[in-house]
């Protein structure tokens, strides 16, 4: 009989590294002319090397569900791509002892001209299902998606919600030994997300091995027993999901009354001309009920004149739940930016329960995301006792508003 000790890990990630050459390409891809021009100039290649991942090693045991967390640009997506064989590692080795299926998005290969039925077959086949497998599960897939009436209608006539449901339905019936999931849950309405989470919970309980990459800390906490925190391409911490999540939150910059430089934080995904430059708090530690007040400095490399920018702030707790979401757009305040630097004051009333919170900053202008710093600064709300009740552990609420309960 196999004991736990005899069992080999289903996935061994050994010293994985991935190097990218960063060339400053105009169109995102090389043109032959540039290549030839460079060759003629006898210049050494000016491209710089960038290690998206360095010496990443971990093991996954059969039946484990592991969450991989980290900020934008930490290397999560690169790891995911390597595990899914989409791009090879530059160094290191991965040994896999099971069939891997990866869901980097739902509905890959969906084509608007094909009918729902045809798309199920094509997408299922791409995901690694055999034709007989798809035929056998076809009715269940259709049932789960709830689009049976439109099976023979071209996909282009589907609403986006229907397309998403159909896509998820196909993915839900995958039966690999190892399932790798990217933040596919980040799309769709709340009801759909709930359905996805339930299905994933089911998969976890079935004892399937899952690697789940997400920003959504509460989803990771719910689904995964273990977590890995990736920072700057290396593993910062690994272990029990709850302790890794705590580490993630405490790895943030700490709120201070001095200005905190945000300009040096590495961003990979967003190449906006306008960035968050600094954040400065009015008070570094808040008492319960005190307004959250801080100033934000935006900077641009070149002078800009923008009449309409959108600054959004999310305040998350250490489980990743978003408790406050503020944006000038929500309250119809028009903000502009001119010159190369401007500051803005943010003032938020709060009745959050005492604890640790992190701030996510989001900046959009001219219709594109200029900057996005996830969980960038953490702050503390000191133990206050608004209700005067002695056993504060009994109080479950995430916010502690004033209330009254009276007999009528």
């Amino acid at each position, binding site marked *: 009989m196999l004991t736990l000790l005899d069992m080999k890990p289903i996935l061994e990630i050994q010293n994985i590294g991935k190097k*990218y050459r960063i060339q400053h390409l105009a*169109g995102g*891809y*090389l*043109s*032959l*002319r540039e*290549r030839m021009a460079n060759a003629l100039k006898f210049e050494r290649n000016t491209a710089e090397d960038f290690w998206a991942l360095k010496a990443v090693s971990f093991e996954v045991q059969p039946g484990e569900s592991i969450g991989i967390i980290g900020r934008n640009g930490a290397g999560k997506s690169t790891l995911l*791509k*390597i*595990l*899914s*064989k*989409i*791009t*090879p*590692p*530059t*160094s*290191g*080795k*991965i*040994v*896999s*002892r099971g*069939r*891997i299926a*990866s869901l*980097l*998005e739902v509905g*890959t*290969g969906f*084509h608007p*001209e*094909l009918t729902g039925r*045809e798309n199920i*077959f*094509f997408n299922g*086949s*791409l*995901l*690694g299902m*055999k*034709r007989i497998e798809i035929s056998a599960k076809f009715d269940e897939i259709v049932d789960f998606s709830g689009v049976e009436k439109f099976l023979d209608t*071209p996909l282009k006539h589907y609403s986006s919600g229907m397309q998403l449901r159909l896509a998820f339905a196909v993915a839900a019936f995958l039966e690999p030994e190892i399932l790798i999931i990217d933040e596919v849950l980040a799309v769709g309405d709340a009801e759909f997300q709930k359905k996805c989470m339930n299905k994933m919970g089911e998969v976890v309980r079935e004892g399937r091995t899952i690697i789940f990459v997400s920003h959504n800390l509460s989803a990771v906490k719910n689904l995964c027993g273990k977590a890995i925190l990736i920072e700057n391409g290396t593993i910062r911490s690994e272990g029990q999901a709850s302790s890794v999540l705590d580490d993630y939150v405490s790895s943030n910059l700490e709120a201070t009354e001095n200005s905190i430089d945000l300009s040096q934080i590495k961003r990979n995904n967003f190449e906006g001309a306008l960035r968050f430059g600094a954040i400065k708090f009015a008070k570094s530690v808040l008492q319960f009920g005190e307004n959250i007040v801080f100033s934000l400095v935006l900077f641009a490399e070149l002078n800009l004149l923008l009449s309409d920018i959108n600054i959004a702030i999310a305040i998350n707790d250490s489980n990743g739940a978003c408790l406050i979401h503020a944006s000038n757009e929500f309250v119809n305040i028009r903000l502009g930016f001119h010159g190369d630097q401007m500051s803005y004051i943010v003032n938020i009333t709060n009745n959050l329960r005492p604890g640790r919170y992190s701030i996510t900053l989001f900046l959009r202008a001219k219709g594109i995301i200029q900057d996005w710093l996830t969980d960038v600064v953490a702050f503390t709300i000191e133990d206050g006792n608004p209700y005067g009740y002695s056993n504060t552990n009994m109080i479950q609420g995430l916010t502690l508003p004033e209330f009254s309960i009276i007999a009528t």
Partner: protein
Amino acid sequence: MHEPAEYTIEPSEGRVLDWGELWRYRELFYFFTWRDIKIKYKQATLGFLWAILQPLFMMVIFTLFFGKALNIPSQNLPYPIYVFSGLLIWNLFSTGLTNASNSMVNNASIIKKIYFPRLIIPVSSILVALFDFLMAFILFVPILLFYQQSVSLSALVLWPVALIIAIVATLGLGSWLAALNVKYRDFRYVIPFLIQVLFFLSPVIYPISLLKYPILQYILACSPMLAAVELFRYPLTGIFPDGYFLGISLLSGVVLLAIGVLYFKRAEDFFADFA
């Protein structure tokens, strides 16, 4: 797709073709081809008829201008048969090459999200062209009957052989261009031009003997399509192509296949990053 029980993912230095893997993924060849054929003809009212109409129109035009007006010799065949037999196999090459060259770029969104042996994409796009070939071939039969053209029994062997040569040539050049196109989008503009040039360098609308200088004939023989076209026509003309030319042409087909597929395999690593 049942992977072997244990496998590794490693840096891919000197990776060669993994036949076992291609076999495991064999259903995807079918699905990609099936999808492309469906999409291609879905919105066309005449549907599959286009695969027949296109070579038919081309045959009529070439017959009027080259056969009648310029009186180009056609190896003792009625000129329409001469040109249609050439176009039949040529179109397999030109359509297949165009499809294959653009196939990786067109499927970029899939390549970035899911792994499968990438070679499936250009191969399937060539299989779509093979489908068109089969449709056009159906028209070839009544044309042969109309002109009461006799066909030697060697067709049973030589037609499939010519078909294989054409597919080898298409795959070699096609997979090469597909990979280059991902990295340098310039090739998008080169491909139609290249096909046009190769068309006039192949004995599709005129016999190679028309050229007076042997050096030109040798240059033409470098096209892998020479062997395909000449062998395809042999059961009709009874004129066997010059052994040297045939040899050169076959060799160039094989060399192209090797270069194309090897370059494609080497380029596989950056597809997800560049596509």
